[in-house]
């Protein structure tokens, strides 16, 4: 009896280290998805009529369901958005989020809505007073990446998804270290 007990004990001891290692390695599994990349364009799940600015709607039926932006979940996509933000010259008007010719993107105020579908239609359809339409010029998958990045500028994304630091000198805190700002709807016209 005693012998069996000691044998059991030694078996437990023998497997303790591999078991702990397995548990430890399992902790890394969720991070696999963080950098997942998809090279072929996924079908767009946004449509311009999903966008809502107010509770007033024609006809019957409730408000459209909020749309989940797939790029909001992937650090790779948010970082691609950051690259495209510079390369497509968004920073030409919005600067590095501080605003200039266009409204700032790193503050809490949103003129046309802070939901992914709002930003999507802002980019695709354009807005009055200067925002051009990029319909057909930027593929949907890249618009989604841009949407994710724009949201990360005011801290709307998860900390592990938001871009960390610039390759070059950064004038402000990285998107990851930006505090989450509660979105405020504003009617203030763009300056």
């Amino acid at each position, binding site marked *: 009896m005693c012998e069996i007990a000691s044998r059991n004990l030694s078996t437990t001891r023998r497997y303790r280290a591999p078991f702990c290692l397995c548990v430890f390695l399992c902790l890394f599994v969720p991070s696999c998805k963080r950098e997942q*990349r998809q*090279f*072929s*364009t996924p079908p767009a799940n946004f449509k311009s009529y999903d966008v809502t600015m107010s509770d007033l709607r024609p006809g019957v039926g409730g408000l459209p369901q909020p749309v989940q932006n797939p790029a909001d979940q992937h650090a790779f996509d948010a970082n691609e958005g950051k690259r495209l933000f510079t390369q497509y010259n968004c920073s030409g008007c919005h600067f590095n989020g501080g605003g200039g010719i266009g409204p700032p993107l790193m503050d809490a105020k949103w003129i046309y809505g802070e939901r992914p579908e709002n930003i999507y239609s802002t980019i695709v359809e354009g807005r009055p007073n200067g925002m051009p339409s990029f319909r057909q*010029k*930027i*593929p949907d998958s*890249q618009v989604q990446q841009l949407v994710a990045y724009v949201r990360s500028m005011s801290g709307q994304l998860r900390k592990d998804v938001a871009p960390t630091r610039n390759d070059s000198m950064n004038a402000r805190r990285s998107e990851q270290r930006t505090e989450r700002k509660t979105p405020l709807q504003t009617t203030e016209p763009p300056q």
Partner: protein
Amino acid sequence: MSKTTRTIPRLILTLVLALCFASCFSSCGGIQNAINPAGPNAANISRLWWLMFIICSIVFVLVMIAVLLSLSKRTTEAADRVPVLEPSEESERRRRNVVVSATTITVIVLFVFLIASYSSGRSLGLNDPTKNGLSIEVTGHQWWWEVRYQDVDASNIFTTANEIHIPVGVPVMFSLRGADVIHSFWVPNLAGKKDLIPGKINTMWIQADKPGVYRGQCAEYCGFQHAKMALWVVAEPQEQFNLWRQNQTQQAVAAASDVQKRGQQIFFSTTCVMCHAINGTPAGSNIGPNLTHVASRHMLAAATLVNTREHMAQWIKDPQTFKPGNRMPQNNLSDADLQALVEYLQSLK
């Protein structure tokens, strides 16, 4: 052991050795080969390589002979040998001589290598004062090469991609830059490799003595499509080069036919215009390769595809099948639109 079981491993061994030799010889010649030099820099490196190869081969053979000799000696004499407890003065002296001479030869060989390597490196680094002629700026992007021909006359400056033309027999100055990550510029037939580092300009000079086409490749791992980040260097006689340069400095030809005009419209109204420039049109973005004279290039997608209509159409439709992860998105154009676009781009000679 039967005879057949013994011969089979031998056969396999012979076959493997023969394959190894065959693969060595198949790499001789060719357009991407460091021991087939086409210019003074590469010749210098190639000489150094041959010197090291020959000396190391001799050393290897000598060591192997010594090992085999000592092995055969031991097997024949070991049986009736009495262990020597007090070695004679004579045998000690002989052994000491062998060790001292072997060490001396090793040191001399290493010094020969040191001096040869130093002098090659020095002559590669020398800046030839006569070379203030042609200056080319190469910028490494993920995953293609931007090539800009500098000139004192601003109207002669032009940008192309993935294909460098140089005149034969003239040293050409290369300034190397990195746009995103570190790349490395390596055209083995013409010169050694040099890194393209973001925020820094590296320079080297290249001279081709034989006309021909030489392939270069990125030699520093730079991400997904590092392996398909290649370029061509076309070395041609001065007159031919001047003609090429003359053409490259021109603006893009205007769309002539209706199909080409339709293609140009598609270029301006879809994703193309966001990244590519065509000089002489409103398209002026410099994120992707400059397409002003895209039809005059031999290859597409950083020397990945031969520049034909079919390849261009397939590449525009789905670049991710050829180079997964590259920065060009898929384009859902209708067949007619795609053909019109290709028609227009192929007219840009």
